[in-house]
């Protein structure tokens, strides 16, 4: 078979592996974009002036609607809880975040929203995301205004999409009008009685504190699909009774999750090893291995990180940068071999091996049974690109808290820069 024939076959096999999860939503969104595109074309001359006027009006309108909420439904969430929910939600998206700095405020009344913001390093610099949760009465008809696009031709948003059922509306602030600053927001009304809003922008500071910050990049780096995923996660983190559940509030990294890291480590391990124990938390996993009947053990862990390779740094083909280090362990005689690979797309994988059954345990072998070259091969394998670190509701210990229904609507909308 010629290479061209092989290529046709490979494309077919690789392409057909991709499964579209929600074709209806995608088509509906495309149709709405089409409607808006047609409308924009028709009102091209007047839209600019009208939109400038309505951008401010739209913001005030949304604000006033929120202030009219006087529901007395119970609502109790502490600052650490809302912070953990945001932390878990952002890890849910699968992106690697480092050096997370939180600011949060709890709430004990439906009149006050709970709010948490996180400023983090995603490997490309600092970015911020803000979560706000408010208790609402889902039968309140005025909520529909918050989650429905304005009429065509009079929208302050550059783009806005409403979806039926589990709907999402999205919009982008006009780059020229707003000086390049964009904010993307998902607003969702949960059937359990919450108004959930997640926002991010293409400035380093939090979206509410953006003055003086120049935009970085054309768009916020956290994409709109990931924001939608975060909103769905937050929705599933609250009960109908007005309190958060363990699903969202569990401290990130304190419970095992079913990801792909252990499966991939075992796949990449040299065949001479047998795995005697394993574990996985978020974007990291570990195995303890032995070789034959030897009593010696080696602990090998893999972590997806946002940091740079350190130690002896060299370049591999395809732009992969690798750093290797030999470091002293915590206990006497324990040695840590570490290989850290970074791809051109800034995905970073760090693999460490200890001559112990855990990083905190005593020495269990004269040295790690795996070589630095073998560790480097594991770290620099492209299969890590498909490793999922997502926490799924099915793995959690509180099945009653898992979502039974999806949120009613969602909204992406834009906001105008502060003059």
């Amino acid at each position, binding site marked *: 078979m010629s290479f061209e024939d092989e290529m046709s076959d490979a*494309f077919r096999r690789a392409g057909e592996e991709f499964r*579209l999860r929600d074709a209806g939503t*995608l088509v509906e969104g495309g149709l709405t*974009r089409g409607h808006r*595109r047609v409308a924009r074309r028709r009102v091209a001359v007047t839209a600019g002036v009208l939109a400038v006027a309505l951008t401010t009006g739209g913001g005030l309108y949304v604000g006033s609607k929120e202030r009219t909420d006087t529901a007395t439904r119970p609502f109790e969430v502490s600052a650490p809880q809302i912070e953990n929910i945001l932390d878990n939600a952002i890890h849910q998206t699968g992106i690697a975040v480092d050096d997370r700095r939180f600011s949060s405020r709890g709430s004990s009344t439906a009149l006050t929203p709970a709010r948490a913001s996180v400023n983090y390093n*995603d490997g490309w610099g600092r970015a911020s995301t803000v979560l706000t949760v408010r208790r609402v009465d889902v039968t309140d008809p005025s909520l529909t205004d918050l989650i429905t696009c304005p009429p065509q031709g009079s929208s302050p948003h550059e783009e806005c999409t409403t979806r039926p059922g589990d709907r999402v509306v999205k919009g982008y602030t006009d780059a020229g009008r707003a000086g390049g600053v964009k904010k993307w927001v998902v607003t969702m009304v949960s059937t359990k009685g919450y108004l959930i809003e997640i926002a991010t922008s293409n400035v380093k500071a939090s979206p509410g504190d953006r003055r003086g910050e120049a935009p970085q990049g054309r768009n916020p780096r956290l994409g709109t699909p990931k924001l939608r995923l975060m909103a769905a996660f937050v929705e599933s983190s609250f009960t109908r009774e007005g309190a958060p559940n363990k699903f969202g509030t569990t401290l990130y990294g304190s419970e095992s999750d079913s990801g792909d890291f252990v499966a991939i480590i075992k796949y990449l391990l040299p065949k001479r090893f047998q795995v005697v124990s394993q574990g996985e938390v978020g974007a990291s996993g570990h195995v303890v291995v032995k070789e034959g009947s030897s009593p010696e053990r080696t602990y090998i862990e893999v972590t997806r990180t946002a940091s740079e390779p350190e130690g002896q740094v060299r370049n591999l083909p395809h732009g992969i940068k690798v750093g290797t280090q030999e470091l002293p362990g915590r206990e006497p005689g324990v040695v840590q071999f570490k290989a850290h690979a970074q791809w051109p797309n800034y995905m970073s994988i760090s693999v460490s091996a200890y001559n112990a059954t855990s990083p905190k345990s005593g020495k269990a072998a004269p040295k790690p049974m795996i070589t630095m070259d073998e560790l480097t091969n594991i770290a620099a394998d492209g*299969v890590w690109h*498909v490793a999922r670190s997502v926490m799924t509701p099915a793995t959690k210990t509180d099945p009653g808290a898992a979502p039974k229904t999806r949120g009613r609507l969602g909204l992406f909308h834009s906001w105008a820069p502060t003059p």
Partner: protein
Amino acid sequence: MRQCRADEFLAFTEGRVGHMFRSACLLTGGDTHLAEDLVQETLGRMYAKWTRVSAADNPAAYAQTMLVRTYLTYRRRRSAGECPVDEVPDNALTPREDLTLRVTLLAALRQLAPKDRAVLVLRYWDDRSVEETAHAMNVSSAAVRTRSTRALARLRDQLGGTIVDFTSV
């Protein structure tokens, strides 16, 4: 009138959206989120030009052409610093043999220039001729041949001369 147009559009796209999504996944090197956005943007453009699309001899090919052009426009507009960790696909692992092939091929595709990638997708995924590919990309047939040869050579280098090794695991 508008409802009729929307109904026609929906009837057409419901049968095509899956293939468009898979094409977009290959074009983006496996970034499914970006692929969804590309498809949605393409559908929006198609609706705006629905009269022309529906009157085309082959609306399906027209849709694929619009998808490729949307992708190339997106790549052209995007600044170099806006391609962070989003390139990590969020898909569950597939069976081992397909995973190896998919990861290897997508990784190799990501190393190619966007136009080279588009040429390969049109030629080997959509089975377009050189002339059809040239029309879809608004370039000459000679340019398509050059790009195709160059891209295949790069892929061959990256894959070690054959991809059978990855498909027969």
